[in-house]
């Protein structure tokens, strides 16, 4: 028998090894497998329920558990903003002048509990979203019959037709919607079983379709994932473009002190901290770990103080303009330890349609003049903020600014777990002004205007238009632009809209923040993907 030469044997073994490793594995899954990834969050997500969660924490937590029909590429930078098929076979076919979207659900998919994923689940999911008065309602209210369903005039949403046999899903819109494909890729309409109760399921999250399922939820304290048993058995082969993840278990814990989060990562007790570095640790941690365990990542975000335009004194334009003039960008820069880039507009740098302008340069004298002109009778103001540093300090600075302008100010510092639910409830008393930020959901300027500044988005709960800004002309322009595909001309119109909104000053924006990715030394740092929308991609974490 002829012996194999050593060189040939090595080549054959390498080819065999590569062939085996490719079997049953999705793209991007090369590398080490196994282990338990420990991650920390400063606050518990608003909800562990895809239909109603609208915070960075919630989206990051559910990116790899609940897969929408379309999703975002598991990649960094602009590639990470690319919409790709999720549970759908392909991107939607558009017809009827951009008012009809047709998709086909991949055949044979199963939830983590073993029940099959049906096209009708999609319709039930969108209906669940409306039943729960989700903050995402404005994105989908253009679906034919959605308003009737919301008002209780119809049993179901007429504009969504599904066929469980073929997996066909047809969505009819009242008007064309330029950003609808991007909105379909947000987690809000990720299918869950049709019988999922229309109540928040944070304590017992619905079964998953993605590579991980949430197996334990301890609201306020943490949650854990394990591999979805149906992923390897079933879904992975059907969804070859989605990564399957490396680690077997993920344990997320709430560690409210960000300095403790840093220490835990340094000591290897935690493998990744979701939150940015606390301001006082930035310089030292950067010096020690940048390029090895730390990466500074720009974010497409706007940080601002909302001004409730529905209540005095901020129902007066002059008062709102005064506040904008009174905020000193140099002070904000120091409070955020140099991690914020000053900006006084709605759209952040990096977002299509962004064109820099500065309507309200820092000028305390002008601010005082505006206040003198307005002479507001109501000078009692409540400033709301969450307790995360340095947001709380920025709000304390803001409180001082308002005091300097002659207001009697009360500062309310709220636990980050409840902050957005509280200020998103219009019945919360004394909701005058406060700290807020907004990160892009998808790379389309409509994401910053429709939910945050359109009068149609004002809702009694889960309100995202916290400033309760309701200007008919602006509303009409937001609606008109939302119907159009994003062309350079439309981008120009968004830039104009940005200026028109800031002339009304419903916010006092102060900048865009850089974020940080900081992992422990045993994590393969180079392989970690920072998605611009979902931050750290849990499927990309692997141990060295």
């Amino acid at each position, binding site marked *: 028998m002829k012996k194999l030469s050593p060189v040939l044997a090595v080549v054959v073994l390498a080819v065999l090894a590569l062939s085996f490793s490719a079997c049953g594995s999705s793209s991007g899954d090369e590398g080490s497998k196994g282990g338990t990834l420990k991650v920390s969050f400063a606050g518990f997500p608003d909800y562990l329920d895809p239909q109603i969660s609208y915070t960075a924490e919630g989206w990051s937590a559910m990116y790899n558990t609940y897969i929408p029909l379309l999703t975002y590429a598991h990649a960094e930078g602009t590639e990470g903003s690319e919409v790709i098929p999720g549970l759908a076979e392909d991107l939607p076919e558009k017809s009827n002048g951009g008012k009809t979207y047709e998709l086909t659900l991949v055949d044979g998919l199963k939830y983590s509990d073993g029940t099959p994923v049906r096209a009708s689940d999609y319709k039930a999911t969108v209906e669940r979203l409306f039943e729960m008065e989700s903050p995402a309602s404005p994105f989908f209210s253009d679906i034919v019959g959605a308003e009737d369903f919301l008002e209780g005039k119809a049993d179901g949403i007429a504009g969504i037709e599904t066929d469980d046999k073929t997996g066909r899903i047809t969505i009819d819109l009242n008007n064309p919607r330029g950003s609808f494909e991007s909105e379909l890729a947000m987690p809000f309409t990720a299918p869950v079983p049709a019988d999922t109760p229309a109540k928040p399921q944070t304590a017992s999250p619905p079964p998953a379709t993605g590579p991980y399922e949430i197996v334990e939820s301890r609201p306020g304290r943490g949650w854990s994932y394990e591999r979805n048993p149906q992923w390897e058995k079933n879904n992975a082969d059907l969804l070859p473009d989605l990564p399957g993840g490396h680690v077997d278990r993920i344990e997320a814990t709430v560690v409210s002190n960000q300095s403790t989060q840093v220490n835990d990562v340094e000591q290897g007790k935690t493998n990744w901290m979701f939150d940015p570095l606390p301001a*006082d*640790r930035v310089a030292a941690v950067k010096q020690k770990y940048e390029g090895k365990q730390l990466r500074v990542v720009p974010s497409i975000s706007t940080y601002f103080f909302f001004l409730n335009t529905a209540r005095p004194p901020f129902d007066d334009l002059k008062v709102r303009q005064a506040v904008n003039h009174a905020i000193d960008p140099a002070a904000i820069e120091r409070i955020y330890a*140099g991690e914020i880039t000053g900006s006084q507009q709605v759209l952040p740098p990096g977002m299509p349609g962004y064109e820099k302008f500065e309507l309200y340069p820092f000028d305390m004298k002008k601010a005082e003049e505006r206040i003198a002109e307005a002479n507001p009778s109501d000078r009692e103001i409540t400033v709301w903020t969450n307790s995360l540093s340095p947001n709380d*300090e920025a709000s304390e*600075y803001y409180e*001082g600014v308002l005091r300097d302008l002659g207001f009697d100010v009360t*500062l*309310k510092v709220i636990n980050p777990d409840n902050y957005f639910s509280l200020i998103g409830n219009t019945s919360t008393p004394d909701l005058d002004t406060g700290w807020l930020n907004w990160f892009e959901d998808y790379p389309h300027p409509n994401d910053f205007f429709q939910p945050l500044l359109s009068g149609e988005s004002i809702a009694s709960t889960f309100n995202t238009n916290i400033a309760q800004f309701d200007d008919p002309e602006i509303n009409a322009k937001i609606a008109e632009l939302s119907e159009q595909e994003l062309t350079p001309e439309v981008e120009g119109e968004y830039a104009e809209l940005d200026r028109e909104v800031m002339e009304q000053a419903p916010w006092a924006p102060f900048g865009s923040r850089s974020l940080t990715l900081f992992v422990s030394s045993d994590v393969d740092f180079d392989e970690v993907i920072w998605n611009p929308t979902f931050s750290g991609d849990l499927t990309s974490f692997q141990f060295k």
Partner: protein
Amino acid sequence: MEGRSPWYFAYRRLRSNRVAITALALFAAIVVFVLAAPLWADWVAETGPNETHTVEKIEVGGETREVVEVDGTPIGPVWLGAGGKFFLGADGRLGRDEMVRLMYGGRTTLLIGIGSALISVGLAVLLALLAGYHRGWVDTVISRALDLLWAFPVLLLAIALGSSLAVGGLDLGPISISGGSLWVPILVISLVYTTYIARPLRGEVLALREREFVEAAIAGGAGPLRVMFGELLPNLWSKIIVFFPLAAAFNMLLESALSFVGAGVQPPNSSWGTMISAGFQLLYTAPLLTILPGAMITLTALSLNLLGDALRDALDPKSKVELEAHTGSFEPEGEVL
């Protein structure tokens, strides 16, 4: 031979106790320090406790320095280098004067500690007199209510009450307190701590109720109010005086713990608890911001505890063992710390 009152002997015993005198002197010094806050703020630091100086510069020994660097690092102690301004440096990225905040924060902490001690001791005495004098169903209702409060871990109960009241305030008939008011932590601490004083006092009243002088007063036609406040209360004074400094010390610690977790004094107002909380975020770059208010709390609580012990020894030396058993309920201090 001229008769001497028990108070005279107590005073003499207290005066001869060096530890007590030292503790009293230390506490008095702390009180003077915090009362001098407006003087220091107006005449030396020339700034208020909540005034921010984020982008300002100061002259320190002929050198111009930023109060807060662009990377957010606050200036450290400059002692008298800037004429007393920023004597202990800035409190963080907002650039507030740490010395001024420490002094004003001490006023807040002492006010809450002593104010809530007054309320909780007053309430406890009233409940103890009612329960101990009337006995029967009055005693049952009061005792079970105190048991109910006792059943909750003191810190958790205080955090729960403090957190909810800090957001919504208190609107109870004619009483309206805003969430940021100092009355919120004062009332919360008073409420949760009353039971720890009322229970031992009730036992004392029950024992006194059986004594001959009480029976004599009742036989002589004295009504309940007269017996409670004319006969029983004077016999409780020595214990009340002992309880008071201990309660004040415990309440200050509780205030600090509540403020540390955001359920006590609300920003921008400072207390030693809020200062520890704020400083904790800068523990690695500016540890003094945590150490200083922490040291102040330690010294204040220590002086009050020593004073309480000395008062107990002076007023009723025979009851040392008995009172130690009662004040075993002060154990939650360990929990708070």
